[in-house]
């Protein structure tokens, strides 16, 4: 019996993964082409840097959301958590006057702890992620106002702080390539997240949880612990986003952040990650975030009236996902 040539299950889809990834870029490339043709101002170095810079915060948030979404969860608190972390950095650096590394560490710890709490509420108390993170979204929003004293905190006493996002380490070496650090940080976070997802046990469990949590539990895995770890990791990434936005605005704006979660989740889904969990890539999310920024930038460059910008963005989000669906169906 064993020696029957086994045609058993020939892979359904697959087809070279590289080809699929190439196609995923197509929506982005189409957009870029259209805008380049429509306006000579679009394909300028300055503007490309502006687009990348505009992607950095949403991109980092979207990467955090990607991790959570792959487990089959959702995180609505990414936006206000980002703000909370920024405010924590502000309190440490400006109110307490401590040195910059402490502010950076503080922001990331704040993100991690908040993620730990969300994760614990979800894993231990079995509160659905939507509700747990909706609650956290409100709690963090309130706390940001409370600890900042409802006013922006400026980083004027920490002169290097704005360099985190705006300086250009690359540009200081290769002046022709003034890529802002914020963009580098986005790519660094993306690489790190891709590495964790692809190469580590945590990443493996992230996919496994989204694929079949009960099967993972019955394999003797401490499901709760890993789930909490994913939310904590996502939280710490939101901490990075908090540093980016604070550095970019040279201030922690306690009122900002709500609404950012939708942009982040949209980037994730446009990037091909399934909201039902178990599948997704960081690269896809980056592309999704870029599509959103290119769209916003291009429409503004074309001076499209703002109300129409909104309409067009809505249409393109639907079309981008539909194109992805068609592509998958064909493969």
């Amino acid at each position, binding site marked *: 019996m064993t020696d029957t040539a086994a045609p058993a299950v020939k892979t359904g889809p697959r087809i070279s993964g590289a080809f699929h990834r190439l196609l995923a870029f197509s929506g982005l490339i189409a957009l870029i082409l259209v805008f380049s043709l429509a306006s000579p101002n679009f394909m300028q170095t300055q503007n490309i840097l502006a687009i990348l810079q505009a992607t950095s915060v949403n991109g980092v948030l979207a990467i955090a959301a990607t991790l959570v979404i792959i487990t089959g969860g959702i995180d609505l608190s990414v936006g206000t958590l980002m703000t909370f972390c920024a405010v924590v950095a502000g309190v440490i650096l400006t109110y307490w006057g401590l040195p910059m590394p402490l502010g950076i560490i503080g922001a990331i710890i704040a993100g991690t702890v908040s993620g730990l709490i969300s994760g614990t509420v979800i894993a231990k108390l079995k509160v659905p992620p939507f509700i747990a993170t909706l609650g956290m979204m409100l709690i963090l929003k309130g706390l940001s106002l409370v600890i900042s004293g*409802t006013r*922006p905190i400026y980083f004027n006493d920490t002169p290097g702080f704005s360099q985190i996002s705006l300086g250009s380490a690359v540009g200081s070496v290769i002046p022709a390539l003034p890529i802002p650090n914020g963009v580098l940080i986005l790519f660094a976070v993306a690489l790190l997240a891709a590495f964790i997802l692809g190469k580590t046990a945590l990443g493996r469990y992230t996919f496994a949880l989204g694929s079949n949590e009960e099967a993972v539990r019955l394999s003797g895995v401490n499901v709760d612990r890993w789930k909490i770890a994913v939310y904590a990791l996502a939280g710490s990434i939101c901490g990075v986003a908090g540093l980016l936005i604070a550095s*970019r*605005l040279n201030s922690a704006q306690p009122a*900002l952040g709500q609404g950012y979660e939708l942009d982040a989740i949209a980037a994730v889904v446009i990037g091909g990650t399934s909201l039902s969990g178990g599948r997704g890539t960081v690269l896809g999310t980056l592309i999704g975030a870029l599509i959103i920024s290119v769209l916003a930038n291009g429409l503004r460059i074309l001076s499209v009236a703002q109300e129409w910008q909104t309409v067009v963005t809505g249409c393109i989000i639907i079309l981008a996902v539909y194109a992805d669906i068609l592509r998958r169906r064909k493969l």
Partner: protein
Amino acid sequence: QDSYDIALISKGFQHQFWQAVKAGADKAAAEFGANVTFEGPETETQVDRQMDMLAAALSRQPDAIGFAALDSQAASPLLEQAKAANIPVIAFDSGVDSDIPLTTVTTDNVAAAAMAADKMAELIGDEGKVAVVAHDQTSRTGIDRVDGFVNRIKEAHPNIEVVSVQYGGGDQLQSTEITKSILLANPDLKGIFGANEGSAIGVVNGKTELGSDIVVIGFDSGAAQKGFIESGAMAGAITQNPVGIGYETVKAAIGALKGETLPKIIDSGFAYYDKSNMADPEIAAVLYD
């Protein structure tokens, strides 16, 4: 009752402008011995949320109410209710189409934005392209400031063209991105008017990130704008007197409770400030951090 209970329902809460109004109100409260609460919806579009706040405030049966209407009509049934309950109402920031408020403590936003237009024209040599980054497309202050600026340019400065008016919700990051797009789309742009604090800060951020040297005129104050004016990144800004608005509102409420007669309008005023006059005591007094 030894301490008056006064409920202020504002248009916003988290923005510095409103926090400055709150600070003024708190100052008056401390001075005159009153309890003041201060609430406002998340964004200046949420008219119905403001109604819920006003309704809850009425239920609390305060001694007086201060109200900055997001939409002056929507509130009329609740204002009638206040009148019926004999709770004096003071309007602040912008007027209410109704004779119920005993007085209105306000800034003329149209005139203030027109002043910004004149200053802009002066700074760019009365010709060239300019743009506006505003906070809101539908709120009263958003409409008044954009109209005030754009109409003044049209009327008085025919050689200046307003090439773009965009709205960033008062969100600094969004306003930054918008500014960068405007600058990149219009390399020959000469100036941008940022129509509220968040917008103005966003405009300066965008300008700095692109290394542009256009003229920026802002609105309101706050530590960031003051810093930008100090450093020259922003040419100047229009300031209202938010602390004064809050203070006068509470003071007027207490006056009403004590039976004083109030003028129909208490103009809290506005002024243009730049590096040269920032330190003047009367300007410094109306700026907030």
